[in-house]
């Protein structure tokens, strides 16, 4: 039987980057995304260490991260898109030699699009298209039914369409 601690640390190895990436596509700041990722794992550990069982640790991690992001956004003012994208070197892809130029541009476009959406839309789209989770898993994370999630995804896509096709 494996110790909770080992299972948890394995979950860190497996999911830290994905959680970080998710946070990044919500806040667009490297240090903040790192902090949120760390806090996600620490809160999750506290939960486990207090004796609670977690069936699906990946979903749990996303759930915690989502809530932390919500808490954080309440504390922050919106910064202008321009300032973020131009001034933040963290938005430069880390391994540029792995990306062709068009990917860089595509990334910037994605970020620009995401930035203007509301939080819930952003969250759903990130979970679906960046974290690559299916509606059932997303439902677990957000406390919704899979159907509900599909409806929201469609709405989110319409929302995006509105923004890119004025």
């Amino acid at each position, binding site marked *: *039987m*494996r110790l909770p*601690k*080992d299972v*948890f*640390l394995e979950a*860190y*190895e497996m999911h*830290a*980057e994905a959680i*970080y*990436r998710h946070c*990044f*596509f919500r806040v667009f700041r490297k240090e903040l995304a*790192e902090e949120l*990722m*760390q806090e996600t*794992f*620490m809160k999750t*550990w*506290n939960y486990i*260490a207090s004796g609670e069982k977690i069936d699906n640790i990946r979903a749990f991690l996303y759930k915690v991260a989502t809530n932390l992001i919500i808490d954080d956004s309440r504390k922050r003012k919106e910064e202008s898109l321009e300032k973020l994208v131009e001034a933040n070197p963290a938005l430069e*892809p*880390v*391994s540029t030699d*792995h*990306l062709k130029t068009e*990917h*860089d541009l*595509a*990334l910037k*476009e*994605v970020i620009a*699009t995401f930035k203007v959406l509301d939080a819930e839309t952003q969250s759903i*789209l990130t979970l679906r*298209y*960046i974290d*690559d989770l299916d509606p059932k898993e997303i439902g677990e994370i957000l406390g919704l039914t899979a159907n509900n999630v599909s409806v929201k995804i469609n709405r989110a*896509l319409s929302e*995006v*369409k509105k923004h*890119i096709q004025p």
Partner: protein
Amino acid sequence: MTIIPENLKDIAKAIKLDSERKKKFGLSLRRFMEASEAVRVRQGIRQISQSNSLLTFFSYPMSIFLILALVLGAGGGTSFAAEQALPGDLLYTVKVDINEKVAAVFSFNAEAKAQLEARLAERRLEEASKLALENKLDANAQSELSARFTAHSQATKSKIKNLESSGDIRGAANVSSEFEASLRAHQAILARLNATTSDDARELSDDLSDAISSTTQLRVDLEDKISVGENSPEVKTAAEGRLGAAVNIIASARNYLQNKKSQLSASSTAQAEGELTVADQLVVDGQAKVQAGAYGDAFNLANAAIRKAQGVRVIIQAQDNLNLEIRFRGGDNQNEVRNNGSASSSIDVGNRGENEKRNATSSNSDDSKKSGAEIKVEGGGKSDLDVDEGGGVNASGSIKIKLGL
């Protein structure tokens, strides 16, 4: 752009978590886990602590970290951070002059004191390993570690002898046996890190070899006395208890091996399992001795089994820590290292297997670079350690360590 680009997921992968930072956060996370565990223990202790039971609690050998947590509580941030310090770091003096001294104050009986000195000696070797891994085990560091190690190892022996003269010969045998196993395992680790071949490292290497010889001698002498000693019911109980402990320790080592299997090469795993099988047999032999009424011998066999299991555990643990580091370094080095067999005769080696190259095992990253790096350590038949390393962004490396006792 189309509403959602088809390859958005791949585009998004450009946002990576740098592996150094991932590792760093991983370490912080572990520290956080330990600290919060300590706080929880402390809260639990508070409930039972107003009585003598606290004294009893501190009589068992405890991890230094736990002692600190209990003593310092929430305000101990610097002390906790210092636990990771290495010679050269600012916090190293906190670690050795404060933390370790605090731990000493809170070791209340002779056995706990002896265990603590052994642990401190072991910590110096762990520090040497970490420095060696970073190529920072220079003459200064090595000299300091050597001096401290020797002091602790001699203190350990002296405390073991005190234990014996105070009448607790089995306690003395236990401590010396565990210390011996730990020293041998660390010697293998340091050799694998090529930490013991340069001129700089000779002092530490010699001191370690000396410590192994004298501890082994001490252990053997104690066991001889136990073997010819009385076969009273008390000894029987002690033997059965120690055999029980051996079973648990072997199971725990096996469990640990199981968990870490994916990070080890097949031959490394096979080796470790072999050691544990030998340990199992020693336990069986010990149980036979109990049946035959030779309780002293049974007790000694239990310790032999524990030494095996302990050796496996220390090696895997080191590999776990080192592997973490190796993995995140990536495979950019081609190193061939010759070890001139500075290990003592206590480590036997079986036949050398051929090097196994491990491929990067991560499956989802297209952009991982697969470069192989090989580090070969060849010895004079004394301690042979093979290391294979697959480099790349998401690769995992492996260390094969051959160790026979």
